[in-house]
C-alpha cells in the first residue's frame, strides 16, 4: 500500500502550499469562515500554476489577472453577504476546447480558426461564472480532444505529476493535472470515449462523464457529436456533485440537451448505500488478458468495502463488450472525420503528427458501417438497460493499466487495446472514475461506477460513500520535487 509514500510526499510539501490541495467543499467552508480569501487562494494557485507549467504543461493559457478580478469580486460578494453557492470564489480550470470569454480557444491545434468562440462563454462556462467561480485559465487538451501530443506544434506537452515520464492521459489532460497538482480545485473536461475519466484515473482524482444530454455541450469544439459530453473533474465525488449541480440542465442551444430536472446532487450524497445492488461485468471488464492484476484487485477490494457498507455485489456478464468498444471508436472516427475532412484535405501538415493519422482513419469507414454501428448502439444500449433492471450500478476498472510510460506508448495500439470507458459514451450512461488505491510503485489506480440514465446522483453517492472511508482521492503527487525541476 502506497499511502505511506504519498503521505510522505504530502508531509514534505510545504505547509504554505497545503491549501492548494483543498477540496472544493473544504475551500468553500474556509471562504465562509473567513480563514481564507478567494484572492489569496487564487493568487497562490495562479503563482504555482505559472511556476509548474513548464514541468507539467497543465495550461495553454493562464488568465491570472482575470482570475484575480473574479476572486476579488467573489470576496466583495462574500463581504456584502451575497452568497451564490459553494462555487463562489473557487478556482477552476477550463479545458481549452470550451469557449470562455477573455481567452481564445485553441483546441491545442494550429488548425482551429482563432476566431472560433472568441468573446463568448459556452453555456456551461456561463453557468460556472454566474455561480461566482474563478477561472485560472484554459487547460491543455489533446489536439481536438484526440490523439497524443506533438511537441513540434508549439503547445505545452502535458506530463503526469505522479511521474513526469508517464502520460497524464487525454484528452482532458490539463484539467486532470491541475486538479492532481493543486493548480485548480476542479474543472471541466470533455469525454467522448473516456477523456474525463482517463485523466482522472491516471492523475488520481475523480471525474464524471455525465449522461448524454445532461450538460449542454454547445460552445465546445465537437469531436463526435453523438458521443461528446462535458463533465466535472475534481478531487472528490462530492466536489463533482457541487460542480454538476451548476453545470447540468437544459439549454436550447444544444439540440442534444435533455430537458430533465436537475437534482441538488450534493444533498443526495448521504453515505447510505444500504441495499445497493452492484453488478460486476466479468467477461472483458475483469478477465481480459491485458488487464493488470493490480488494477483488478484494487477495484474488487473497493467493491468489498462497498459491500461492507451494506451493498451487494454480483458477478454478471454484458454481451458484445469488445464490439461495443469498436462501435464507439467507429462512430467517433466517422463523426470526427466529417468535421475535419476539409481541413485534412487542405492542411494535413498543420495537424499534430499523431492526430492526423488518428483522424484519417475516419475516411475508411463506409456510411453503412456508421449506420450499422448506430444500430448496434441501439441494440447494445437495450442490452445494458436490461442488465440495469437487476442492478443499481455496474462497477469496472477505469482502465486496464495505470499511467503508462510515454516512451512505451503506441498510438496505433489504441484501436486494439481493451478500454472500459467508451462503452458508456456509446450507451450515453453516467460513469464516474474514482481512485481505488495505488500501485506498488505509487501510481494511482481507479475504478469506474456506471449508472442508469440521469442517475448521476446514484453513481456519485456510491463514489462518495467510498470516499468517506478512503483517502486515495485526497493524496497528491510530490509536487515539491517538481518545483526543483521547474527552477
Amino acid at each position, binding site marked *: 500500500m502506497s499511502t505511506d509514500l504519498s503521505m510522505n510526499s504530502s508531509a514534505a510539501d510545504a505547509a504554505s502550499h497545503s491549501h492548494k490541495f483543498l477540496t472544493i467543499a473544504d475551500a468553500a467552508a474556509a471562504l465562509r469562515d473567513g480563514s481564507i480569501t478567494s484572492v489569496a487562494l487564487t493568487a497562490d494557485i495562479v503563482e504555482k500554476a505559472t511556476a509548474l507549467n513548464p514541468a507539467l504543461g497543465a495550461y495553454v493559457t493562464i488568465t491570472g489577472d482575470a482570475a484575480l478580478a473574479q476572486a476579488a469580486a467573489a470576496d466583495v460578494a462574500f463581504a456584502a453577504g451575497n452568497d451564490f453557492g459553494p462555487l463562489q470564489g473557487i478556482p477552476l480550470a477550463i479545458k481549452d476546447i470550451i469557449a470562455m470569454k477573455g481567452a481564445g480557444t485553441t483546441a491545442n491545434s494550429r488548425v482551429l480558426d482563432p476566431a472560433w468562440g472568441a468573446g463568448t462563454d459556452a453555456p456551461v462556462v456561463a453557468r460556472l461564472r454566474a455561480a461566482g467561480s474563478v477561472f485560472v485559465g484554459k487547460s491543455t487538451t489533446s489536439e481536438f480532444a484526440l490523439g497524443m501530443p506533438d511537441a513540434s506544434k508549439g503547445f505545452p506537452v502535458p506530463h503526469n505529476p505522479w511521474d513526469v515520464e508517464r502520460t497524464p492521459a487525454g484528452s482532458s489532460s490539463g484539467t486532470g493535472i491541475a486538479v492532481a497538482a493543486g493548480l485548480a480545485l476542479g474543472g471541466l473536461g470533455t469525454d467522448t470515449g473516456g477523456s474525463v475519466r482517463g485523466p482522472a484515473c491516471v492523475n488520481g482524482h475523480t471525474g464524471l462523464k455525465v449522461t448524454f444530454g445532461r450538460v449542454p455541450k454547445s460552445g465546445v469544439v465537437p469531436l463526435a457529436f*453523438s458521443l461528446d459530453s462535458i463533465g466535472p473533474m475534481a478531487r472528490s465525488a462530492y466536489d463533482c456533485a457541487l460542480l454538476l449541480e451548476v453545470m447540468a440542465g437544459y439549454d436550447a442551444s*444544444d*439540440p442534444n440537451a435533455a430537458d430533465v430536472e436537475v437534482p441538488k446532487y450534493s444533498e443526495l450524497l448521504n453515505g447510505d448505500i444500504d441495499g445497493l445492488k452492484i453488478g460486476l461485468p466479468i467477461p472483458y471488464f475483469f478477465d481480459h488478458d491485458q488487464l493488470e492484476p493490480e488494477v483488478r484487485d484494487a477495484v474488487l477490494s473497493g467493491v468489498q468495502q462497498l459491500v461492507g457498507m451494506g451493498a451487494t455485489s454480483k458477478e454478471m456478464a454484458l454481451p458484445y463488450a469488445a464490439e461495443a468498444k469498436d462501435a464507439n471508436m467507429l462512430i467517433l472516427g466517422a463523426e470526427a472525420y*466529417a*468535421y475535419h475532412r*476539409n481541413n485534412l484535405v487542405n492542411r494535413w501538415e498543420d495537424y499534430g503528427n499523431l492526430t492526423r493519422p488518428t483522424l484519417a482513419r475516419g475516411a475508411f469507414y463506409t456510411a453503412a458501417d456508421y449506420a450499422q454501428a448506430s444500430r448496434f448502439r441501439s441494440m447494445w444500449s437495450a442490452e445494458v*438497460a436490461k442488465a440495469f433492471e437487476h442492478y443499481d450500478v455496474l462497477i469496472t476498472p477505469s482502465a486496464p493499466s495505470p499511467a503508462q510510460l510515454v516512451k512505451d506508448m503506441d498510438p496505433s495500439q489504441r484501436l486494439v487495446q481493451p478500454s472500459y470507458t467508451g462503452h458508456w459514451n456509446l450507451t*450515453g450512461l453516467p460513469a464516474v472514475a474514482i481512485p481505488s488505491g495505488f500501485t506498488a510503485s505509487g501510481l494511482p489506480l481507479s475504478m469506474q461506477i456506471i449508472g442508469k*440514465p440521469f442517475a448521476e446522483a446514484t453513481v456519485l453517492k456510491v463514489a462518495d460513500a467510498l470516499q468517506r472511508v478512503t483517502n486515495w482521492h485526497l493524496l497528491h503527487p510530490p509536487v515539491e520535487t517538481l518545483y526543483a525541476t521547474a527552477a
Partner: protein
Amino acid sequence: MHSNEEKLAVVLEMSGITPPAEDQEAILRAFSTGRELSKLIFSVAQARYEEPALIFSARV
C-alpha cells in the same frame, strides 16, 4: 489519381459486394453520382458547426 472504376472496385471489395459484370456499369454510374453528391454536401460551409439531425438519447 485513381479512376472511379478503380475506386469502386476497392470499396465494393471492402464492402463484401460482388456484383456480376452486367451490373457494373449501372453501379459505376451511381458511384460517380454519389461522389458528386458527397462534394455537394461538403460545400455547405455552415454545416460544420451544425448539430447533425441525429439525436441520441441515453434513455432506451
